């Protein structure tokens, strides 16, 4: 194949996508060359434009092509609630599932000292400054219930407490439609220890 350097390059380049190994990359390359060159040209234009134009929102760090993302710029969103999540896909998940009307802050990661990810890498100075502005009256922590997510949550909690801003954490427990018998021990223990009172 060495006599076709461009084809080789294309296959190699496609492998940067998640889940694409050498075999899939080869299949994709042959597919676009054989039947769909127009779509491929379109893809290449959009891809290069997206890489040039899309940056991070100045307020929440989520991806946007404007200075501020749609949610941060919206006048109908409540600026007093701020929900902190690990990744842009978490924002989409919460937007789809809940009627949350507040704003977000996207960490783009979680505290993991061993991997060299500390408070600075997660934009926590920016978040601190935002909290100091005094507009936020509830910080909702929606980091994942992993060890690193919990460490991040604790750090955020300390930060908000210093500025006397109320902090809440999304609940963890038994999934809807699940059965206790099949739930792993730690989740069940967590659900049990954070049970809620039902008495009026």
């Amino acid at each position, binding site marked *: 194949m060495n006599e076709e350097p461009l084809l080789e390059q294309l296959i190699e380049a496609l492998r940067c996508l*998640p889940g694409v190994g050498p075999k899939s990359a080869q299949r994709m390359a042959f597919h676009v060359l054989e039947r769909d060159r127009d779509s491929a040209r379109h893809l290449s234009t959009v891809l290069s434009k997206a890489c040039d134009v899309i940056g991070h929102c100045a307020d929440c760090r989520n991806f946007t092509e404007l200075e501020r993302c749609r949610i941060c710029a919206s006048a109908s969103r409540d600026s007093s609630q701020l929900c902190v999540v690990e990744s842009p896909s978490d924002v989409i998940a919460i937007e789809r599932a809940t009627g949350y009307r507040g704003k977000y802050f996207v960490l783009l990661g979680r505290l993991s000292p*061993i991997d*060299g990810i500390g408070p600075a890498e997660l934009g926590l100075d920016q978040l601190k400054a935002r909290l100091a502005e005094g507009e936020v009256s509830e910080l909702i922590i929606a980091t994942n219930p992993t*060890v690193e997510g919990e*460490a991040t949550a*604790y750090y955020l909690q300390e930060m908000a407490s210093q500025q006397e801003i109320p902090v809440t954490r999304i609940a963890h427990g038994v999934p809807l439609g699940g059965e206790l018998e099949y739930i792993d021990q730690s989740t069940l223990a967590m659900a049990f220890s954070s049970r809620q009172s039902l008495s009026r």
Partner: protein
Amino acid sequence: MRILEEPAFVLHARAFRETSLLLELLTREHGRIGAVARGARSAKSRWRNRLQPFRPLLVGWNQRGELGTLTGAEEVATLPPLKGEALMCGLYVNELLIRFLHRSDPHPGVFSAYQALVGSLSAGEQIQPLLRVFERDLLQDVGLGLQLDHEAGGERDLDPATHYEYLPESGAVPRDNQADSAHPLVSGEALIALRTGQINDSQQRELKLLMRRLIRYHLGDKPLASHDLFR
């Protein structure tokens, strides 16, 4: 080499390839090992939420070359999850172990100490004295132990009333005042407390500074990242 049902803790897990995890495990008989948990990040994996730090596990793996392949992981007991400061300290200890232990270098003593420490952290015991004793034992086990039986030179016992400059290579050198020393002085009383493990509140601060300095000395240029979390 195939290993079955070995007591272990996950020290660190990072994403590896598309759906796998690359684990750093602390095992009882084999020390720290690196192992790949195939498919552990996929939604259907039975390991999905088990492979988290601070959970006592029984693991099995196949070892060929540097990295093992995880073949089994069972949770032995459920400890209450670490919270708040205990969690941060746990992450610090995990980083410490990764930095001080080489892969496949057995340290059963360190494993037992770690197991006990995780239990105590989980039970919400007072953290700082536990950490000092763990740091002392870890350094001892990897051959960098402190000299806490007597003064540098080995002729005199530590005197509780004397202040010392502790030098990593030689031990506790008596100093009359702070100006004679390049480092903060530490009292003989505190050094003896570190030896016996009976550390009281007033000795905590000087011992923390001492251990922090010694650990930095032994680790060389690259400081511990966990220290950024304690600001």
